[in-house]
């Protein structure tokens, strides 16, 4: 049950060619195809939001702004943020990679509810449609946070607010259904031998994420519906003119949106745990601490939303309480970093493209996490709040960490998904460009933020001293964009011209590396038995297949 031979040239039956036609994809119940469809959709949305990001960066090259009006700029940063958060980063790792990998890691044929899974994908598509409608009927300029009372003020905010809110509401359900599906799948479909503490850490991370998705997302759903009602009918919940409280909206919003940060980062951490262990060919260090830290982050994440509101006028006592709880989240994050470093220690580190992304993650997440200390600390947050320091911090976490983890995962599982190898040299060049470009683009933003540059400014005519930082930032984002373009080119090239991928190119031990690349239609003929998925001493290199095989002298679990 190990591998299907990859040396034979004829095409064998797999999930990509099992059935044909566009309908066989759009209405498929196969988790792998749904995962691939998610991947295509998420990457398309990423391209769209990336174009808006470049528009923002080029606008800010001069203090007067180069080519957009104030209104256009406000739309650009709103659309960039909303698409990146709701359509890209939240579904990226769980829905795209998770859907593909999770059932195979469990040796299962599919997720627990395949139809619900397909429905989640369609909801994502409807969410996107509503966002496009929002752009068509007047645009949105509220910021992705939809803060009241600006978002309920029909005279000044733009006309696309309601379609955007409905789109976000629908995307919320897409996320909830994916989460429910994963929770049930992990509970019910684990194979023989896979106790909770023998699950690959990616599954712990997606499990923790799924809990947040199911518990937190309904809150944003209700909040957004209230906002729709407030804007259309005017019921006076958030509108101060009718006795409502605009700050109440911030509480509701961040009660979801802070945990949502962990929906974004936790699965990426799960990916990195796999990358670090597999590519350093060494048993993951401190498995239980990493697993528990995922759960701890998920739990603490629910109790810290108020740190987004330190200057909103909420009481000093509340601020003090939220500050101390916020610090508690930093501990499990630190634990993960130390354990990854300990895994590298005395490892046998292959600097493949996925590993470069994995190591980039550690570097960037260290900065993203440590600068969180400045923002959790009350005295310094008052100065830094709503400045570019915050912008830099959350880009280090959401873009530099979550999306780089996603990219690492794509490169790690690409041979499995597509059955082809990409060009390794171009992969490394692109990964290094992304790393350098990212840091140039966003480190300069820390400096201008703490020096006094406010966020969401279309022009900065009164503060021309910040131009040099903006130029650096724009230069960095151009390098970053170049890295992504190269990445897109060699990945697309590999689909058509890539070398045939072996079943196990990197030397991974979890179950997805034990079926062929790409996997057969139903993954495994029967559910395999598993052992310790981080014991890599049972694998050896097979020169003819250019991949790893199970050692002849070692028995499979259950044999």
């Amino acid at each position, binding site marked *: 049950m190990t591998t299907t031979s990859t040396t034979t040239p004829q095409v064998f039956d797999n999930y990509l060619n099992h059935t044909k036609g566009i309908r066989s994809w759009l209405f498929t119940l196969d988790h792998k195809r749904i995962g691939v469809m998610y991947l295509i959709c998420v990457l398309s949305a990423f391209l769209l939001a990336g174009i808006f990001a470049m528009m923002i960066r080029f606008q800010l090259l001069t203090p007067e702004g180069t080519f957009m009006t*104030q*209104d256009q700029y406000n739309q650009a940063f709103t659309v960039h943020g909303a698409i990146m958060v709701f359509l890209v980063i939240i579904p990226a790792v769980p829905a795209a990679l998770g859907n593909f990998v999770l059932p195979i890691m469990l040796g299962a044929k599919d997720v627990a509810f395949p139809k619900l899974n397909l429905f989640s994908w369609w909801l994502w598509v409807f969410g996107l449609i509503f966002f496009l409608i929002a752009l068509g009927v007047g645009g949105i300029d509220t910021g992705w946070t939809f*803060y009241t*009372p*600006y978002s309920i003020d029909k*005279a*000044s905010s733009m006309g696309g607010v309601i379609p955007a809110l409905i789109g976000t509401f629908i995307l919320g359900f897409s996320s909830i259904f994916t989460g429910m599906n994963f929770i049930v799948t992990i509970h019910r479909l684990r194979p023989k031998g896979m106790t909770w503490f023998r699950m690959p850490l990616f599954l712990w991370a997606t499990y923790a994420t799924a809990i947040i998705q199911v518990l937190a997302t309904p809150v944003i759903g209700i909040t957004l519906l209230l906002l729709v009602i407030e804007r259309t009918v005017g019921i006076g919940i958030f509108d101060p003119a009718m*006795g409502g409280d605009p700050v109440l909206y911030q509480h509701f919003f961040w009660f979801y949106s802070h945990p949502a940060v962990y929906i974004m980062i936790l699965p990426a951490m799960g990916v990195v745990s796999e990358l670090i262990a597999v590519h350093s*060919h*060494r*048993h993951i*260090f*401190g*498995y239980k*601490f990493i697993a528990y830290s995922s759960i701890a982050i998920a739990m603490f994440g629910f109790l810290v939303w108020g740190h987004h509101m330190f*200057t909103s*006028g909420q009481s000093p006592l509340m*601020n*003090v309480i939220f*500050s101390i709880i916020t*610090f*508690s989240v*930093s*501990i499990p994050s*630190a*634990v993960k970093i*130390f354990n990854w*470093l300990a895994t*590298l*220690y*005395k*490892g*046998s*580190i292959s*600097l493949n493209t996925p590993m470069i992304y994995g*190591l980039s993650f550690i*570097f960037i997440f*260290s900065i993203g996490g*440590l*600068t969180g*200390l400045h923002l959790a*600390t*009350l*005295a*310094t947050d*008052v100065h830094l709040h*709503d400045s570019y320091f915050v912008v830099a911090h959350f880009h280090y976490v959401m873009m530099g960490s979550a999306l780089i983890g996603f990219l690492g995962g794509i490169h790690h599982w690409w041979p499995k998904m597509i059955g082809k190898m990409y060009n390794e040299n171009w992969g490394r060049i692109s990964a290094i460009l992304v790393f350098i470009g990212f840091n140039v683009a966003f480190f300069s933003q820390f400096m201008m933020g703490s*020096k*006094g540059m*406010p966020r*969401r*400014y*279309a*022009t900065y*005519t009164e503060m021309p001293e910040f131009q040099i930082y903006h130029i650096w930032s724009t230069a960095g984002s151009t390098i970053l964009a170049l890295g992504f373009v190269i990445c897109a080119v060699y990945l697309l090239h590999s689909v058509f011209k890539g070398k045939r991928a072996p079943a196990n190119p990197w030397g991974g031990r979890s179950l997805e590396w034990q079926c062929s690349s790409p996997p057969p239609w139903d993954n495994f003929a029967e559910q395999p038995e598993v052992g310790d998925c981080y014991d*890599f*001493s049972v*694998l050896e*290199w097979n020169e003819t297949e250019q991949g790893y095989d199970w*050692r002849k002298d070692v028995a499979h679990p259950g044999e």
Partner: protein
Amino acid sequence: MFSILTSLLATTSQGAPANFWLPKQASTVAESVDLTFFVITWICYFFFFAITGSMVLFMIKYRRKGHEVVADGPTHNTPLEIAWTVLPLLLVVVIFVVGMRGYLNLQEAPEGSYEVQVTGQKWSWTFDHPKYGATQVAELTVPVHTPVRLLMTSNDVLHSVWIPDFRVKMDLVPGRYTSLWFEATAVGNYNLNCAEYCGKDHSKMFATVRVVPKDEFEPIMIKLASEYEDMSVGELPAYAINRLYNRCQSCHSLDGTTGTGPSFKGLWTRVKSGDVVFTTGERLSDLYGENTTYEVPENYIRTSIVNPQEHIVQGYLGSMPSFQGQLKDKQITAMIEMFKHLDELTDDEGNITVNPDGAPRQ
């Protein structure tokens, strides 16, 4: 632990100039905020270099050479892992306590602080000095070495006062009051920005904090409070364009470009002839004449200032707030006189060419 921290703090003395991370210090709280900032930053440096340093070291030292079979290594070390869980925990407790102390210090304005009422509205700042009955727009004059408390509210959406050199920030929320306080330590001009996104011209919602010597402060306020009262009608236009126009400028240009509202250039000609069409399709000239809405054109301007929603000019959204109660009758007269004499007050590019006293600007 605290004594070690305190000794490290010696590098940030009061009134320090701008450095790699932070702008210059110009308030009494800035020093302790910066102290906290640098303690955290040093901790960050330590962990960052420890983490990335060992990462790079391992990358080089343990780089995989070929495809050799690996031995299974150690899987965990509980005492070590507990240690690197507990030690950071202690460290963050220290950071929390330092940060909380500094923060509580920011909250309580000293007894007897000089009070200023701040109103934010799209997209200008108004500062009222109740003690002198003076009002400033887009400019806040305060005495040096005096605790100043800002009592703030908003007329429309959320705004936020941020004075980076003072290290203070607080949101303005419609329907409630918020406050912040500072004590400036050096005479000079400082930026005050809106930090909470508030719509179209958020990035133009700017004011200057002018910190003046204590003995100069009172005369400035007395002059501000009364300067227009003794003016003749002929002196009012120069006063209005210098003292009142700054709360209009984010929406109404002087050079003819269309903003959120119509340009002031040529406005009096349009109003006098009634050549203005409203969103309802009515023409302004239809409203003129005896026993009609506006007996004289000046009344239309007055209504547009105190009740701007009454008539909205075609092609605009009507997002102007009311200035009822914010302008005295004589100030509204000054605005009307300003419209009538705008050509004498500005050049072709819309630059203001006179000073408040009517003398030409250099």
